[in-house]
């Protein structure tokens, strides 16, 4: 049996309302301040660093994102860490908040499908994150131009824009996860604690656990160890395991995009380097080809998590 009427009816209204809620909310304000303060400091330090160490580099702008010092991590590192927090903050009470405020049945008794509510809320969250990221991007590029005095080349702008898109996909994955939790749990506190637990696991614990598991699955070969090399199987397993965390996938993609001279992700074999001019940058299209799987994985993650939540939400009882 097919239902009649468009599932899109009301999406725009929900979107605008949620977006204005997000933008004016205190929790968003705090996160924005945090991001910009940290971002500003990190970029400032990076600029100092670049001034001191880099004589000539065609990709100075991109270095702003990746340059790190012993005491200060790179902007990329900060983003990998902070974006999930922002996404969780925006999504953890999307659906259960409506239940708890008892607005759900009233809103759904208006001529809209549930689809509109969920899609509108997701898009509003994504747009909010997008606005934040674009602002941060402009801040970084602007500071770079002002303080370094070098205009960015078209390729740098293109690379950093692709980086922006991938960052948004990464943020979307966490947002979809947070919204999924807000659907399956009835209390916002449970949702936010679960989300933060998973975030901690993916950020801190998994990078520690993954090597242990990799060594168990593929024990290092002593012959490689004698030569001071890592066993290829172990390294491959380690890499695959670490990719379970979206943070790692994002870091892989972002590093490749922002460092044009990285020619592969993970282990590189000698025969792959035959004929390569070490240190020479790859064209953008080649870098894109390298990060394509990562980009697809992140975007795929968004869809899988969103669809999972969608299915549960459609079958859920309106009554609390």
């Amino acid at each position, binding site marked *: *049996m*097919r*239902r*009649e*009427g468009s599932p899109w*009816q*009301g999406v725009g*209204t*929900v979107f605008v*309302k949620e977006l204005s*809620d997000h933008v004016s909310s205190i929790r968003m304000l705090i996160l924005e301040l945090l991001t910009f303060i940290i971002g500003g400091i990190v970029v400032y330090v990076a600029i100092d660093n670049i001034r001191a160490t880099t004589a000539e580099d065609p990709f100075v702008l991109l270095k702003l994102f990746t340059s790190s010092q012993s005491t200060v991590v790179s902007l990329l590192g900060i983003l990998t860490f902070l974006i999930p927090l922002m996404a969780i903050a925006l999504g953890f009470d999307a659906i259960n908040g409506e239940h708890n*405020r*008892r*607005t759900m*049945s*009233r*809103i*759904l*008794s*208006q*001529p*809209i*499908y549930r689809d509109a509510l969920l899609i509108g809320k997701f898009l509003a969250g994504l747009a909010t994150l997008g606005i934040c990221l674009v602002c941060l991007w402009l801040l970084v590029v602007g500071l770079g131009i002002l303080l370094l005095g070098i205009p960015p080349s078209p390729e740098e702008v293109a690379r950093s824009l692709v980086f922006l898109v991938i960052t948004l996909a990464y943020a979307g994955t966490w947002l979809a996860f947070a919204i999924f939790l807000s659907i399956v749990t009835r209390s916002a506190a449970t949702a936010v604690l679960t989300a933060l637990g998973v975030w901690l696991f993916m950020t801190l614990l998994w990078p520690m656990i993954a090597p242990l598991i990799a060594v168990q699955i593929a024990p290092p070969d002593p012959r490689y160890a004698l030569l001071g090399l890592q066993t290829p199987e172990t390294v491959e397993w380690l890499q695959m395991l670490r990719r379970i965390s979206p943070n790692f996938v994002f870091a892989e993609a972002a590093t490749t995009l922002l460092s044009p001279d990285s020619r592969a992700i993970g282990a590189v074999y000698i025969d792959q380097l035959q004929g390569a001019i070490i240190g020479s940058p790859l064209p953008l299209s080649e870098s894109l080809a390298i990060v394509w799987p990562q980009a697809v994985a992140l975007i795929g993650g968004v869809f899988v998590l969103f669809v999972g939540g969608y299915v549960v939400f459609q079958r859920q*009882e*309106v*009554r609390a």
Partner: protein
Amino acid sequence: MNAPVITARGLTKRYGTATAVDAVDLDVAKGEIFGLLGPNGAGKTTTILMMLGLTEVTGGSIEVLGHDPVRDPLAVKRRVGYLPDQVGFYDNLTAEDNLAYSARLMGIAARDCGARIDEALARVRLSDVARKKVRTFSRGMRQRLGLAEIVMKRAEIAILDEPTSGLDPQATSEFLEMIEGLKRAGVSVLLSSHMLDQVQRVCDRVALFQRGRIVLVGPVAELARQVLGAGFVVEVEADAATDLDARFGAIPGVTSVKRVGGDRYRLTADRDVRPEAARAVVAANGALRRLSVDDPSLETIYSRFFQQQKSPGEGARDAA
């Protein structure tokens, strides 16, 4: 009876093995106030949610204003207003903004919004708090704001779920007046409640729910005849030297005389027998202190009915 606006035939809802609504047949006529009565958990809210297409129907059919809420919920929800049990609003928005959001979801043209919101708020006497945040509203004000939403929608049917539960007596009577106002405006009203005296005050017809079934339907007076078995109950308080029982029993039309406490008698009759009863007391040289006729109260019907259900055999005839 006018043409029905809501028709249900064999409407059934099962959750797993539990049956919440069991083969309910229901007709709500245009322009009437119809009450759904019953203890909590009897299936009233589930029936309402099925009418709005907010929960799936397990069996049977339902038609609201000629639309099938299962297939075409948007068409139903465009024309039907719903006030859920313990309605919630967005606390951080003003009354006006809350209505504006609903208005946009309803698809009301932007240029009509302002006028319709003002008109609706005036109807429920909330004009002077239109720009106050809903956070500050009392329960009664929220309930009225919910009614304003239905007024603004220009709904043809208003479905109100426990509209007066938790309101103080003053707020309750104000709210019931507003419901009657809806009826005068030509809106059909379906309300569910367990507050019997209120239902009796406003409802044209009622349906009594018990464990997912409708066990009684009709105007209150008719139900009284069915359940209580007689039209009038006259109470007499008088003392006399002689026994009054026999004298009362001799009055034509009186079917039973019961002595309830020292000098109080309860006569059940098929007409108003107050004049005859007074004459009987005087004739017996007694002192008449009180003489009253009970309107059949829904509360009596309700408790009597459920008593009869508990002691089968006695009540089976009346319930049929």
